[in-house]
Structure formats: C-alpha cells, structure tokens
C-alpha cells in the first residue's frame, strides 16, 4: 500500500487556486511513490510546476516536447532495463498532448509494451494556450476555437474514446479516474505501476478558469460529471471492464448549467434539442458501463 502521507509534489507551484490538474499530480505521485521518474509533456502542469530554477517535483522529472513524452519514456525504460534499474516511469500529460499531438508516440509506445504508466490529466481543452478545443473537448462545449455563436452550438465533435483506443493496443490495464475521488487515483496509479507493460489512466481534472465556474467548486463539478454519467470511472484489465463506479444519476443539466462553456445551452433560452443530445451521451455511457444503481 502506498504511504499517502508522503508529499512528492510540493506546494508553492504556480497553479491557480482550485486547479484540478495540480490535485491530480499530487495524488498520482502518492500512488507511484518516490521511486518514480516523471515524464511530462508541454502544457499547463509543466509550466506551473517547473519555471526554471524552481521545481515542484521531488522525484526525477523530465520534459522534452509537447508530443513526445511516450517516446522519451520508451527510451528511459529501455535504458533502465539495460542498467538493471527498477524505477517506475510515469508520463503525466494533458489531453491535448494525449488525444491529439502525441497520439502517434503513444500508439508506438503501447504497441511495444514498454513498462510505463501513461497518465492523462484531462481538462478537456488546451488550457495553457487559452482554452482551445482538443480531441477531449465534449460535445457543445464553447472554447476559443469552437466558440458558440448564432450559427454554432460550440464544439461539434464528441470526446474521443482514448481509453478504448489504448485498450485496443493490448494494454494490460486501462483506467479512468477523477480528482473528485483522490484515494481512487492513488489506488489506480499504484496498481498500474505494478503491472508490467504499458498502462493508461485518464483522470478527469476540471479547469475552473477554462470551464468557467467558481474555483472553490472544482471537486463538486468533477463529482457532478460522474453523477450525471458524463464521466465514468472504471478499470479495464486485459481489455475487459472490471469495477465501474455506480451512481444514482442526475440529469446532465446540473453539470452543464454551472459552467460558462455550456451557458449558451441555457441562455437566452434553454436549448432543449442540444441538451437532449448531451443527455443521450450520458444515457449511452450509463448503458455501456451499467453505472445506474
């Protein structure tokens, strides 16, 4: 069992108060422990945690580029094997780096089956560059490159199913988690780093500045995503879904209404048609994963 009293992600970094990804980083390291090498992609977390010469990381940490963390991790893993070393290698990358620009490197690393754990902190857009849409942005979310307007409901595509894509690579362990349930993050990361092979964990990590809600509400908003069925926490072992977090589902309105990125669905008047489409996404999730109590 991981010793959760040990803090390996130091306070004093430059994340916003109420930052979801910062909470994710803290609990990822509680799960992987001090014998961890972190490989980061370019993004919010890299920027708020390592402005030279300050670093929030009490474990070895490396950042190379936006899109190559999985390839850099591959090299580290092989070097460690050659040297007879046993540190865990954990990539911590945003959704832009994972769903979009880094997909080729990730696919290669998972195909080769390096002994790494790749964690995506998913805040559902490019937050570091100013809230542009990514492949992880949900349907109808308004971002700076998918703005809602008189001729647009916001983002036109649905969130890409990265966990399924990586499971299809033969990953022995794929899981989703949420910063609303930090102990669950610790458990899943600890499990992943102890399974040989390339494992994937996707952590829902709301960004209050990007999504437009009160910073004190980060955990509650993350919880609402799960309670509405728009985010599902589950584990897949060798491609089969095991444990799923079950909920007594609430209508998606409760999750959407408090976020500025979905405000256009409620003002000037409620857009029943679009909200029904989002409700259908939640219903499909519920049916696929059997989350309803």
């Amino acid at each position, binding site marked *: 069992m991981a010793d959760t009293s040990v803090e390996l992600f130091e306070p004093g970094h430059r994340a916003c108060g109420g930052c979801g990804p910062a909470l994710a980083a803290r609990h990822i390291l509680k799960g992987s422990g001090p*014998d961890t090498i972190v490989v980061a992609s370019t993004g919010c977390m890299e920027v708020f945690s390592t402005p030279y*010469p300050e670093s929030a990381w009490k474990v*070895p*940490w490396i950042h190379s580029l936006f899109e190559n963390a999985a390839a850099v991790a591959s090299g580290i893993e*092989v*070097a460690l094997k*050659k040297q007879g070393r046993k*540190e865990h290698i954990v990539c911590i990358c945003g959704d832009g780096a994972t769903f979009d620009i880094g997909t080729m490197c990730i696919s290669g690393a998972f195909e080769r089956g390096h002994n790494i754990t790749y964690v995506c902190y998913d805040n559902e857009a490019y937050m570091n560059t100013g809230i542009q849409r990514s492949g992880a942005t949900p349907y109808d979310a308004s971002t700076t490159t998918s703005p809602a307007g008189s001729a647009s409901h916001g983002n036109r595509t649905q969130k890409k199913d990265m966990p399924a894509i990586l499971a299809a690579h033969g990953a022995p362990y794929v899981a989703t988690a949420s910063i609303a349930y930090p102990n669950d993050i610790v458990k899943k990361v600890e499990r992943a780093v102890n399974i040989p092979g390339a494992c994937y964990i996707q952590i829902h990590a709301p960004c209050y500045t990007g999504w437009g809600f009160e910073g004190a509400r980060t955990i509650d908003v993350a919880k609402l995503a799960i309670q509405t069925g728009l985010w599902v926490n589950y584990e897949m072992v060798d491609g089969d879904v095991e444990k799923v977090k079950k909920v007594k589902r609430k209508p998606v309105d409760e999750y959407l209404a408090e976020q500025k990125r979905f405000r256009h669905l409620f003002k000037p008047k409620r857009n029943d048609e679009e909200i029904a489409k989002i409700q259908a996404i939640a219903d499909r999730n519920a049916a696929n994963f059997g989350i309803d109590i």
Partner: protein
Amino acid sequence: MLQVLEGSIAVAEAVKVCKVDVISAYPITPQTHIVEKLAEMVAEGEIDSEYICVESEFSALSACLGASAAGSRVYSATSSQGLILMAEVCFNVAGMRQPVVMTIANRAMGAPLSIWNDQQDSLTLRDSGWIQVYAEDVQEVTDLHIIAYKVCEDHRVLLPAFVCFDGFVLSHTYEPVEIPDQGLVDKYLPAYNPYNMLDAKQPLSMGMYATPDYYHEFRYEHEMAMQRAAGVWREAGAEFAKIFSRDYSQAVEGYRLEDADIALVALGSVCGTIKDAIDEMRNDGLKVGLLKIRVYRPFPADDIKKALSGMKKVAVVEKNLSSGSRMLGIVGLEVKDAINDSSISVLSYVTGLGGRDIRKSDIRKIVNACNEGKGNMFSGLREEIL
C-alpha cells in the same frame, strides 16, 4: 586489418566498438543498411545493446533523448525527410545538452521526392545546435563516430553530433577499411560517464522552461560549449591519431593548396573527385587546390581564413541550395565571411543536387567559370530540358 566493407556496414561496426547501450532508429533510404546490420548484431548477441523499433524518426530521436537522460550511451541514424521530421527533437536534444551521436546518410529533400544524395538535409539543420562533421570516405566515417562520442561526452562539451556521409556514394559503396580494435577503442572511449541523469536517488528536473530572465543565458552557455568543442575535437583527434595512426584532428584539410591560386572548397565524398580533378588540372598547368571542411559545426572560420589567405579565387562546391540567398549555397556565405578579404573572390556553385553525379569534368567547368569571374550559380544544369 583491412576489410572490404560497404560504408553502412563499416558505420555499424564503428557503432559496435563504441559499445552503445541503446539504439533507436526508423528505416529510411539510404540509412537502412546501417540499422539493419545493427539489428542483426543485436539479434545475434554480437553487441550488448538494446534496439528500439519505433514508429517514426521523431520517436527514434525522442527515445534516444530519454535513454541518454537516463544515463545511457545512445545512437541513431537517419536521412533527409527523417532528419527534418526530427528537427524539433534535434533542437531539444541539443538544448538539453545530451551527447547523442547520429549518423546522417545525406540525401536530398522532397519535393520532388528523391532518395539520392546531396547535403540539403543536415545543412538545413546547421543552426540546431549539433556538432556536424562530414566524411570523405568509408574509413573516415568509421573513425569519426568514435571521435564524435569522445567529444560529445566530454564534460566541457556535452553536445550531440551529426556524423554525415553521402548517401549511396559512401553508404552503399565498398571500400577497404580498418575497423578499430575493440581493446584500443575501450581505452580511447571509456564507458559513458554522464554529467547528470534521471535517478530516483538524486532527483532533479530536466527540461524546465525558462523565462526571459534565464533563456538568453542558456543559449549563451550552449554556444560556449560549441566553441569549446573546437579545441576538444583537436585534442580528441590527436589522441585518436596517436593510437590508430589516422589523423582527423584538423577541422579542415588542404590538398595541393600551398602554391594554388584557385581553391575549391567542399564537404564530403566529392572531395575525392575534386582531388583527382586537381591532379589533372595541375598537369595542364592550372594552380588549383582543395580545402576540405571536415568539421562544419563548430565552424572553423580561423582555419579557413588561414588556409585560404594566399588565394586569388575560391570556388565553393555546394551540394545544397539556400533558396533566395545571394550566393545560393549555404557553405559559400560562411566561407566568404571567414575569409573576410575583398581581394579574394569567393563564389558558390550549386551542383549535384538529388544525386546528380559530379564528375571531374564538372569540377573543371566550375574552375573555368571561377576563372572567368562567373559564380553564385547552378552548375551542371541540363539546359536542354529547361
């Protein structure tokens, strides 16, 4: 002992005696024979290296970066499109000061697609912060790898290097070559001793971002290392010469320059053709010589100025094109700047692009044009198809 080996196989043998820990590469013509041979050596247990088959050149160099940061000696090889796909990682490896050594089997850049030789690929990455050396023949490219590791890993340097040789012209050509003895190489090039590395026992952060308060100084430190590399190369080359009796310590090398009026300047295998052409032109009474540039980065400006100070005219043979530049060639501009003497005419001749053979007669044409004061032009064009 001399063996007759294909250039690519000789390079693989050089990598073997350098005892690299991790190899990562992606196949691209004309680099393929090198990485195939290395994969075979790994499969046969002839070398104690790990070989990572990746899905792109971009990942090949990224994996090398990771392995190097974790304290291993690493190797890659590529050409042309592969190198330019790596361009972003190239800047990163250099900025992170990882002593990666990479062979470039020089090839033209598309479009149009061409698998054949020129030097556009590596010269385009001139400013990416890597040491660049160019080999004239198979023996030289073999030996340059061993020296490159020695220089790159020196704690006064800590920079990566391209070891360039002309695709097909050298990579697929058989020449007599001596593969340096493993025992002697072990003495010359001891196991990699990283300056720092990723290690949970001594955590450090690598590749942090730098604000305007720090970035400028990072680049300055990089440049100081590059400048130190010139001296370290001379030192390492001299030590190599002592042990292996082949001397690559000089960044430039002259051929029949002492009494020459006209100097040709070139990089790579074309130097061999130029030397033969010079011998013929000398028989005809033309006072021509050659200055071969071996180390292109750090650029040996002082050596070039010294070697060419007595010339009347300098003709730079360019297997590259800096499109839209006044002299057309990348090398000529720098040679002209190094000489910095308006009494010496320095002209560039873009020739042999995309694998077009450069023959002795082509060299003679360049010399004739130079004598007539014509230059900064394409040479060897097929006028009939224009």
